[in-house]
């Protein structure tokens, strides 16, 4: 079972600048947890992608970042929640694009590969919730 090991930080995503705030908080928390430079960057990039999806497709939502623990192992959990239009075809959204998109956000396959746990719930008209965890390996 995954339990919270610290007070989670929640950032409201409404403007592009909020993405920067979320990245910054995420990077600091991952540094705190002991992640090296690359993993800090990968975590910041994952937060970016999730926050950009909120900003571009839903207009607004939240990113919550928490240090969590499971069976003595610590990790960083990022939860992105919005009440936007939702993803009509999740399988498609998780497929690698033919082009390296990037420009329009999405980027979910990239996030999925950089993180250890990846959980997505979405329904048209009901918004989207993405939950990812990166475990810290000693």
């Amino acid at each position: 079972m995954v339990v919270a090991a610290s007070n989670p930080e929640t950032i409201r995503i409404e403007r592009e600048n909020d993405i920067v705030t979320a990245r910054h908080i995420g990077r600091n928390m991952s540094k705190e947890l002991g992640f090296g430079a690359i993993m800090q960057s990968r975590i910041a990039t994952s937060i970016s992608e999730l926050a950009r999806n909120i900003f571009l497709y839903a207009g607004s939502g939240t990113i919550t970042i928490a240090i969590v623990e499971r069976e003595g192992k610590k990790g960083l959990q990022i939860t992105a929640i919005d009440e936007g239009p939702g993803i009509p075809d999740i399988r498609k959204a998780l497929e690698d694009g033919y082009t390296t998109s990037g420009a329009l956000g999405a980027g979910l396959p990239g996030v999925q590969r950089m993180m250890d746990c990846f959980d997505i719930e979405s329904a048209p008209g009901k918004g989207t919730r993405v939950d990812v965890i990166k475990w810290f390996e000693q």
Partner: protein
Amino acid sequence: MTRRLEEEYVQILRDYLNSQEEDELYGAQKLGKWLLLKDISPEELVDLHSRALESVEEVPEFVRASFRMLTEVMIEYGNAHRSLQSWRNKHAQLQSEVEIASAMQQSLLPQTIPTYPGVEIGVVSIAANGMSGDYYDFMHFSGHRFSLTIGDITGKGIPAAMCMSMLKYAVDSLGEIQLGPNQMLRHLNRVVERNIDPSMFVTMLFGCYDTNHHCFRYAVAGHEPGFLYRAREGKFYDLEGRGIALGISADSTYVEHEVALQTGDVLILLTDGVTESKKGRSYLVREDLVGFLQNEVDKPAQLMADEIYRRLMMLAQFEQRDDYTMIVLRRT
């Protein structure tokens, strides 16, 4: 990343900074290949380089900061690198599925060329890439007769191959009741019209050969006209017959034709992969093909079919653009 790799990288970097010689750069290039083999991502390499630099010399803060930025940029390249990996796996899986499907499809075509009294048959049927949209078959009928089918499904590759297997089952089961050529095509047309995508259609020639009287009764559905070689005159004639391709209209009907073969006469049936093959930069014309047929017409049927394929491939510089099928039947 292993400690040894880091040490090795530090060593190469140190040597190069000291000597700035080409052989150190050659070493670096070889290392690059090895890193790729070990699946080291671009951002990991940038990080490795910045750490190696630290262990070689005192690094000013602005350089250190610039590496943090470079690492950040490289994450996207890393994502592209990782997604290439998953594309590769998917590609390999698809490739092996196509190979299996193509082997399955091959088993739908005759495994051996049948022998009938008084005739000699040769066949060459080769797919442009793996799976074929060409179809041919022989079936033994009662009363000294056998049927001969040659068909071409529009398009090529997997969709054409799927359609071809349906066609094979339809021909097989309709063959059971030994319909005449025009009835056969009429029924097949209905099957094709009902079961395949409206954008696809099938051209076909279906005929029955009577080995007692050596006459060939056939009907054509929009198929590339074949040839009839009259040995006594030494001339090639187009096989008559047009008809609407299968799958275009639900109630197409077909006209039967009949030709009688004298000793030495040859029937040549083909798909448009034969007639539309290339001759250097331009396309082959039917007259060119007749010239080639003329050159080979005295050879045994199989040899003749093989030789023509070889000749056409050479002309096309071994680029086969479409599925290719040719059947040669000679009255001996």
